[in-house]
């Protein structure tokens, strides 16, 4: 049975510890999301699994062996990588044929995979004229050449249009459904939430959490909002019960990192009148922020828009202008 296993995997690029003693296993039959903020070490980990980057320590195994030791890697693992290249002057079909030849895959398979990814009509076009989404499809076509048991995809949704993303989602489900392994990295959490069954969350090169997405979401803390005329009274009552709460508006209470059950009990016990109650945050996004220790909206504010053309720039005040 197909498996991916990472044991104590570590990669150091000079002074940067990109991946730090990472261990996890991926099971067949489901889509596993590999999530983490930018620079968390996702791509480096995937490239170590594929023998492209040499681990500083630890092991990255596919079906129990290192990628480099697979006799026919193309028939075991298909990989879709960012910044994987194409010669711009080569047609899509010729690109795939060269790869098929090297892999010992019959050329009839080239037409099949072009058809699978929806590029059948574009096979004889040069890749230099392809959109990013088309290149991504071509990359997937290459990954499928050897009819692999394991798919490793790094940000495969990049550049795909909404139809492409929906197609990719159903494709990955279909693929995993045949008891095969799918490990897919993504920074698009809303998209990942719809695609993956299992998640491995990475931050700063370390494991931040792993498990079934549904179980993780059930256990995740949520924000509970209550509209009540007793808002002023409710905040200290919640605090007494160990629930952190704030009053953003005179009749609104926001309780963080808790559950509707806990807040409801406090209100019932103290006879607080509830006009409206809602909970939010049972999302992969809030789970992600919780696991990675980052805060939603903590990114620096975007720079102000540039002044319209012809407007004086701040530098003009200093008399540098003509």
């Amino acid at each position, binding site marked *: 049975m197909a498996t991916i296993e990472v044991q104590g995997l570590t990669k150091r690029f000079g002074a940067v510890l990109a991946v730090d003693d990472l261990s996890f296993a991926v099971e067949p039959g489901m889509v596993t999301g590999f999530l983490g903020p930018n620079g968390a070490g996702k791509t*480096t980990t995937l490239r170590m699994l594929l023998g*492209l980057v*040499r681990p500083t320590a630890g092991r990255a195994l596919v079906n129990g062996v290192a990628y480099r030791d697979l006799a026919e890697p193309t028939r075991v693992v298909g990989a879709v990588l960012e910044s*994987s*290249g194409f*010669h711009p002057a080569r047609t899509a079909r010729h690109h795939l044929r*060269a*790869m098929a030849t*090297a892999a010992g895959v019959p050329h009839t398979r080239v037409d099949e995979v072009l058809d699978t990814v929806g590029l059948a009509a574009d096979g004889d076009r040069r890749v230099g004229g392809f959109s990013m989404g088309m290149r991504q499809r071509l990359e997937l076509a290459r990954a499928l050449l050897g009819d692999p048991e394991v798919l490793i995809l790094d940000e495969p949704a990049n550049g795909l249009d909404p139809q492409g993303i929906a197609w990719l989602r159903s494709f990955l489900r279909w693929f995993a459904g045949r008891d095969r392994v799918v490990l897919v990295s993504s920074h698009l959490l809303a998209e990942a939430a719809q695609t993956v069954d299992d998640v491995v969350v990475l931050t700063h090169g370390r494991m931040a959490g792993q498990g079934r997405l549904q179980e993780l979401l059930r256990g995740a803390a949520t924000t509970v909002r209550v509209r009540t005329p007793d808002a002023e009274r409710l905040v200290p009552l919640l605090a007494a019960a160990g629930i952190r709460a704030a009053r953003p508006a005179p009749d609104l209470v926001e309780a963080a990192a808790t559950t509707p059950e806990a807040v409801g009990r406090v209100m019932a016990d103290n006879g607080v009148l509830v006009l409206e109650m809602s909970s939010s945050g049972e999302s992969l996004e809030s789970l992600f922020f919780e696991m990675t220790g980052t805060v939603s909206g903590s990114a620096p504010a975007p720079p102000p828009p540039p002044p319209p053309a012809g407007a004086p720039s701040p530098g003009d005040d200093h008399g540098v202008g003509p």
Partner: protein
Amino acid sequence: MSRLLRAEVSKLRTVWSTWVLLGVTAVVVGGIMTLVGFAPHRRGVTDLLFPARGTAVWFDSALSVMTIAIDLALVLGVIMTTGEFRHKTVTPTFLVEPRRGRVVASKLVVGGGGGLVVAAVAGAVGLVFGFAVVGGGIGTAGRMLTEYRHVWPGVAAASVLFGLYGVGLGALLKNQAVSLAVGLGASAVVEPIVTAALPSVGRWLPGQAAQALESVTARPQASGFGTSVVHLVPWWAGALVLLGYGVVLATAGTLTTVRGDVT
């Protein structure tokens, strides 16, 4: 291994740069031979550069333009390795064959074959224009063919080995522009200086080794500028030296740059 060889051939066949390179070979050889063979005969420059038209020595000089194939074989070899890094096709290439030494080895073989193809194009065009010159009433076919046999075999052998040398150079340096500058600059600029100053060192450099190889069949005293061939190493040593440049550079590249992380 044969799969990798066929894949490398397929990669070469499916990009325009290969065909442009062969086209350049044909145009340069044909163009210069036209110029030499059919330009109105004027006293002056051509007299200095070329002996009387139609003589054996004149044919030898005219046909020596085929040596351009050697430099272009180097370019082909360099492109084969550096092109993979430049266009990042090295990622899918190493995914298909993670044993990178095998990839470089197959490129060496195909680079040598590519060098032979470049030499074949130069040779075919040289032959066609050789006959055209003879048809134009200059010299005889027999004399032209005799000189052709003096020039082409050495050019072909050197081109094969320069194809390998280019693959090795590219594997070590990775960067296309740098590899071409080093490879072509070495034979155009560095070698003549070193050879002039230190012939005992210079004769082991690629260009001089190629000349040694060409000298096997070359016409005695073919060189027009009085540069004697006495300083050259024996032809077989030239061949081994060139093969060594290709293999040593490729091995060094495989153990250093090629072995590195593909990110």
